[in-house]
């Protein structure tokens, strides 16, 4: 009979950019159970909706997360537009799509870098982040900021982007593509990466589905589930197939994210080719009345914004279900039986964003 001990993991940990705390119940070197505790960075953003004008709250909704900020802002706008039944101009929807995909690109590159860092592959980490800078420059030159873009508003977007600029973004991405190929090649083929990630933290298809995994974690377990397919923003007019892997391990999750880089580039190209001319915002008058659920696909998975309004300028209720929060139960299931040294890599494989999860 082995004696069980509890090892605290986090909230301050070298591989974790954000404070997640896990109590690991160990038998020798093996994890028997992982008990999470969250709440270190709770900011009460959902309550704040009662104190701010619904049009201004988009800036706060955007600050739920520092990486998928644009998509949070966009989903909030979608929710309010859903309540008010606003016909958003198509050019604005296309621009939102382009920015969403740029966000996905930079988020996935950031994550690939962090993953490489978590397994001690420092040079790969730096290469990933170097490529990410190009995407961030595109975002800054079109929206005004690198990560907190502040480009969405209720009823459209705040800046138009000229067709020449959009063309140059696509040209820049085409230049970036061979470099991304080289980078992804290392993740796909390098033996040390394969050995470190293969067969680690396995989630079967059934487990992932039943425990409510979303996004790349779910798709890596063989479930083809991508909220972009419901056709919010301009996705219903663009063609893509969700990237699905069947391994269910950390390697499969890496592959999903690595291949999604190229899906995103294709989507941006399609959106730029099809983008219509016209206004990018509409005048919004009056206050919302009603409730609405808006869903969209973040780099980390499905995000749901729920909004309830009672006809005043302040909303009554705002609720966000973020992908990290739903990915925690699958993570805990995947951690059973792991070696202690593998825990950081598996935790990172769900791309935890605790700022999102606790809001």
């Amino acid at each position, binding site marked *: 009979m082995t004696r069980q001990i509890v090892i605290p993991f986090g909230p301050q940990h070298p591989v974790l950019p954000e404070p997640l705390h896990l109590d690991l119940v160990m038998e020798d070197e093996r994890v028997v159970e992982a008990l999470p505790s969250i709440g270190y960075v709770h900011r009460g953003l959902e309550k704040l909706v009662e104190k701010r004008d619904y049009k*201004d709250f988009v*800036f706060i909704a955007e600050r739920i997360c520092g990486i998928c900020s644009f998509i949070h802002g966009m989903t909030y706008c979608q929710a309010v537009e859903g309540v008010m039944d606003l016909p958003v101009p198509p050019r604005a929807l296309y621009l939102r799509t382009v920015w969403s995909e740029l966000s996905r690109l930079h988020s996935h590159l950031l994550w690939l870098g962090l993953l490489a860092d978590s397994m001690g592959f420092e040079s790969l980490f730096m290469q990933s982040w170097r490529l990410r*800078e190009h995407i961030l420059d595109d975002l*800054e*030159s079109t929206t*005004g900021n690198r990560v907190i873009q*502040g480009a969405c508003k209720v009823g459209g977007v705040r800046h138009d982007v000229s067709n020449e600029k959009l063309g140059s973004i696509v040209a820049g991405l085409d230049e970036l593509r061979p470099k991304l190929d080289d980078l992804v090649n290392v993740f796909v083929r390098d033996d040390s990466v394969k050995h470190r990630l293969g067969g680690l933290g396995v989630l079967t298809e059934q487990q992932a589905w039943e425990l409510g995994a979303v996004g790349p974690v779910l798709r890596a377990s063989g479930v083809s589930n991508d909220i972009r397919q419901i056709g919010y923003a301009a996705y219903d007019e663009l063609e893509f197939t969700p990237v699905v892997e069947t391994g269910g391990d950390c390697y499969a999750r890496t592959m999903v994210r690595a291949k999604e880089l190229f899906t995103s580039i294709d989507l941006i190209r399609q959106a730029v080719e099809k983008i219509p001319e016209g206004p990018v915002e509409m005048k919004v008058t009056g206050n919302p009345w009603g409730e609405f659920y808006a869903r969209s696909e973040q780099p980390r998975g499905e995000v749901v914004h729920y909004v309830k309004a009672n006809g005043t300028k302040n909303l009554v209720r705002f609720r966000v279900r973020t992908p990290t929060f739903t990915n925690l139960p699958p993570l805990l299931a995947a951690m059973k039986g792991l070696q202690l040294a593998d825990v950081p890599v598996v935790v990172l494989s769900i791309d935890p964003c605790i700022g999102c999860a606790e809001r």
Partner: protein
Amino acid sequence: MGVFTIAKTITGNLFSRPPTSRYPAEPAKRFDLTRGHLAFEPENCRVCRVCMLRCPTQAIVVDREKRTWECDHFRCITCGNCVELCPTDALHLEPAYRSPEADRPGKEFHEIPAPPPKAEAGGETAEA
């Protein structure tokens, strides 16, 4: 094969410039839209307080009676909401980031000059 691949990488690294920008020597990258910091022009302000009322972080305090405008740059998130809402273009965003300060950190205080007494109603509409 592997040897030549790495040789190519090494020679590439030897003769290429570092990808990071040499910051103090060359200026930092900035774009026209970059939201660096909020700038205020007191002479254009009509003390309507829309910037204070609609600031998502309540960084701006405007006093109508004393005719003062104050911004706490530590609270300001440079979202640009006030810039869009300002009816007289008294606010705008500068692409440069604010430099570090030692005393009274982050606070910016302005007294708003009183409007010229002559053209009170007519002059304002003409400007707007």
